[in-house]
């Protein structure tokens, strides 16, 4: 009976696929050779602690590294090459776990480089990203040649930023659709850690109020980050990573965030609706707490890049 069921589904899928292929216009036709089949497309069949939908929601909402980089630049803090992760030992990253975490870290660094228009340094970073993405079999979503051309010619920096960010978004989407959310959660964790590392290192040198507030704000994200990583507690490497992130979370316990709600105002300007929120947000973070957060983030980030 079971065998017959497989046969019926098999014939149906082949039939539907052939019908779709025959209907595809030549212009948009893709070679079947381009399709990669992830080994673990069927997952490990272990139930998740939270639903796939909730997982995706959380992954989608971990702060964009571009926003953090934009904030750093807007404060007038100059670019610092020494803050970036080294790309020298990329070939030594021999597991998907290490590759995914470091892909996230380098992805965040790419956002930082792009934001400061350091296109000369982008090539090294991108070469490493391309290599890691290929190892993870998601290199097809990283338009390396276009990004390289834009960076080399120092042309159209908006396009460079757009293609870089959308490449990562597409990689993330593909991983989730092909049942590899574990890899996706690691990339997002790497990005978050690196974004926090850049922000905390900047604050260590120049304590800018806006950046301190953004660092404190991340208290809202930490619980979600731990939640998605705990989904894979069957893997000891994930357990170790959660232990590290929980060290950061403990430092955040002393951060207090309060709100005062106000009425939003809206007006139409040049065909666009502009909404101004009149809520107020108050952050209470002592210098000692901030220092502890800075030090812990630095420790955790350095552990990850030296895995």
């Amino acid at each position, binding site marked *: 009976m079971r065998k017959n069921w497989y046969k019926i589904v098999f014939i149906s*899928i082949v039939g*539907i696929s052939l019908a779709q292929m025959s209907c595809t216009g030549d212009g948009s036709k*893709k070679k079947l050779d381009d399709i990669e089949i992830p080994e673990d497309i069927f997952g490990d069949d272990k139930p998740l602690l939270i639903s796939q939908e909730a997982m995706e929601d959380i992954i989608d*909402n971990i702060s964009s590294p571009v926003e953090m980089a934009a904030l750093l630049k807007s404060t007038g803090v100059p670019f610092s090459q020494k803050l970036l992760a080294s790309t020298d030992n990329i070939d030594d990253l021999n597991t998907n776990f290490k590759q995914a975490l470091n892909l996230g870290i380098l992805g965040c660094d790419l956002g930082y480089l792009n934001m400061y228009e350091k296109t000369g340094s982008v090539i090294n970073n991108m070469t490493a990203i391309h290599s890691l993405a290929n190892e993870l079999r998601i290199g097809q979503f990283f338009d390396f040649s276009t990004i390289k051309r834009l960076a080399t010619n120092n042309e159209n920096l908006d396009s460079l930023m757009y293609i870089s960010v*959308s490449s990562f978004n597409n990689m993330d989407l593909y991983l989730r659709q092909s049942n590899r959310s574990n890899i996706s959660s690691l990339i997002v964790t790497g990005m978050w850690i690196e974004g926090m590392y850049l922000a905390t290192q900047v604050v260590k040198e120049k304590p800018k109020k806006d950046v301190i507030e953004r660092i404190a*704000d991340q208290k809202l994200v930490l619980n979600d980050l731990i939640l998605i990583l705990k989904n894979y507690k069957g893997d000891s490497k994930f357990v170790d990573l959660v232990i590290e992130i929980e060290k950061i979370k403990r430092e955040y316990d002393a951060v207090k965030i309060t709100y005062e709600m106000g009425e939003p105002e809206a007006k139409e300007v040049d065909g666009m609706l502009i*909404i101004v*929120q*009149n809520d107020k947000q108050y952050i209470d973070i002592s210098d000692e707490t901030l220092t502890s957060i800075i030090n812990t983030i630095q420790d955790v980030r350095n552990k990850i890049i030296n895995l």
Partner: protein
Amino acid sequence: MKKLFKIILALFIGFQVNQTFAQSDELVNVCALGIGNATYLKDYKFKIPASSVSPPSLKINVILNKGTMYKITVCNAEGYAGEAVVKLMDNATVLGSNMKADGSFLKAIGFQCERTGMYSINVSFKNGKDGAAVAILSYINM
């Protein structure tokens, strides 16, 4: 047989994913060109079939940060009758919509965020018509 089944299923899923990317990415690229003096952050793709009852809607949760001016730009796909109605929500409160009271549409929604937190983008299609659209979330460079 089971192994062969898995391989064919993987090929099938891969093919579907590639097809979907090819079609909707084109609209994302076109839409991203229209965000003006803003920096792209994310894109969201929506496709909703026609409904004669209450118009179905989709909701995306998004964390927005204090001190940032966000912009949501909406582009409708060609070949569909529906026009996307996008609402930015703070819990149950509608902060604003791209559809005006007279039924006409604005090209984008801007939001000056002063409280970091979870907001949602709610999308339906006017009069429950079938539609496909892309919403680009970006921030405005101040």
